[in-house]
């Protein structure tokens, strides 16, 4: 039986590898072999890979240079600051809004007015008003994550079955107990969905912010690579961003599983 299972999963793997190989081959053929007009400018996968692992990269950035990791550190640092701020503020505001009807009625219209503005439209204002471009970039990243978190937290509180509130009341809880024992754990699943989404938009806004404001980091490096004709560097950094995005959302999932062991165990059961 074990073998049957292996064959099955193996077939999945084998198709996945084949699919990816096909993708890389087509990319290679289009860019390097056929010499087609528009594709010519695009670096081919082999060149990109060579550059990525080279000890003496043309662009000065590869897996073996400090520059590469410095760029990563800048971007990761900004995302971390903005994202943690958005999580703390967004989750607590969302919880209170969901819990207290009056607070909700007063604050929700403001959220609804500010929310439709894409985070990136804040860039010019943020750069002009805030002290320093660095803070402006972090602010734009923050704003993106903030609204996603607040809205999902709200949804989470509203999704809690009314019976849990009644049961807690009838067992003699005071409002504080209800908040800690029902509102917070009950909305956790939605909060984590919100954080996942927030992470996605954060990275996107960060890249745009770095490109537009010209602050060091992955986004800037991508644009710099473009202006200096280091097209390999552009592709390398795109994939680096993809990997970082994937790792960060996997991290959130892992934390979520830890905090919501009841959900994980149910699925396991």
């Amino acid at each position, binding site marked *: 039986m074990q073998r049957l299972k292996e064959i099955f999963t193996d077939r999945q793997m084998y198709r996945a590898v084949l699919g990816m190989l096909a993708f890389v081959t087509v990319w290679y053929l289009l860019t390097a072999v056929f010499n087609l007009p528009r594709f010519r400018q695009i670096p081919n996968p082999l060149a990109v890979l060579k550059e990525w692992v080279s000890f003496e990269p043309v662009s000065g950035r590869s897996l073996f240079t400090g520059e590469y990791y410095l760029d990563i550190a800048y971007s990761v640092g900004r995302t971390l600051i903005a994202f943690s701020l958005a999580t703390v503020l967004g989750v607590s505001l969302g919880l209170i809004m969901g819990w207290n009807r009056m607070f909700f009625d007063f604050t929700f219209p403001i959220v609804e007015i500010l929310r439709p503005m894409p985070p990136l439209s804040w860039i010019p204002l943020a750069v002009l008003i805030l002290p320093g471009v660095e803070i402006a970039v972090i602010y734009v990243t923050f704003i993106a994550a903030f609204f996603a978190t607040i809205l999902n937290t709200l949804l989470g509180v509203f999704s809690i*079955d009314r019976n849990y509130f*009644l049961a*807690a*009341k*009838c*067992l*003699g809880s005071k409002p504080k107990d209800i908040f800690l024992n029902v509102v917070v754990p009950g909305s956790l699943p939605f909060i984590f969905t919100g954080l996942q989404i927030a992470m996605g938009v954060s990275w996107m806004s960060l890249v745009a912010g770095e490109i537009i404001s010209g602050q060091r980091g992955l986004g800037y490096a991508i644009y710099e690579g473009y202006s200096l004709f280091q097209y390999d560097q552009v592709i390398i950094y795109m994939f680096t961003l993809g990997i970082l995005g994937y790792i960060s959302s996997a991290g959130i999932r892992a934390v979520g599983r830890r905090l919501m062991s*009841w959900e994980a*165990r*149910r699925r396991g059961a």
Partner: protein
Amino acid sequence: MTTAAQQIQGAISIRNVTKIYDPEGVHVVAMQDCSFEIAAGEFVAIVGPSGCGKTTLLNAIAGFDTITSGEIHLDGELISSTRKQIKPDVDRMVVFQNGALFPWKTVMENIIYGPVVQGRVKKSAAAGAAREMLSQVGLNGIEDKYPEELSSGVQRRVEILRALINQPKVVMLDEPFRGLDAVAKTVMHEFLMEVFCAAPRTMFFITHDLDEAIFLGNKVVIMTTRPARLKKIVHVNLPWPREHHMLGSEAYLELKREVLEAVHEEAKKAFEAGEREMA
């Protein structure tokens, strides 16, 4: 159980209760002029068509919702009226229709939640009491499980224990065994009977299952279709503890026929009314 009647509290008096939802808008009369008495330590089964307002009555007694007119007294004390609504209190415990064990707390955390949050006892003392309760009913070894890891039958029993540990005067159960299969239900009946006989207290038991109502109840209260009024009270004079062979007895069948007829009449009315409403 009658010997203990003196200490038992929890007599409920429901007087001319009317409940209208959204009086200015849709104006749904859920209950109209409903009155009846529940003696202390009595097991009352409430049956009636779905959506007839049984849960409305439960919410009023539990203090979850106000009523439009009338009064409800518990041991002579006013607990719900138009003028004054008394908040839910720990002397009345509710077991909910779809189950309201907190999914994010383990069985143990769920059971001791009440005593700890009320500040009555220390966590460790409550845990000891909870463990004892669980082992009394043969549910050892599930303390650290989350509710959703358990079958719905066990979940239901844990929820009943979570109510009982608070020593309430009244336990209200809103269709607690809905969705369980016949065999699981029989087990649940045995369980409920055992805890009831061990420490009789007022039970307010809403159900749709007539066998269950007669088998467990001192009396069966039949409600009319919406607006809910009292249709009939059937007193069940079977001896306690109830046993399964009673289900075939002539006395039982006679009771069942009586209840069945009354309920079926109301159910048909409710069904036709529902159909008209949809159209």
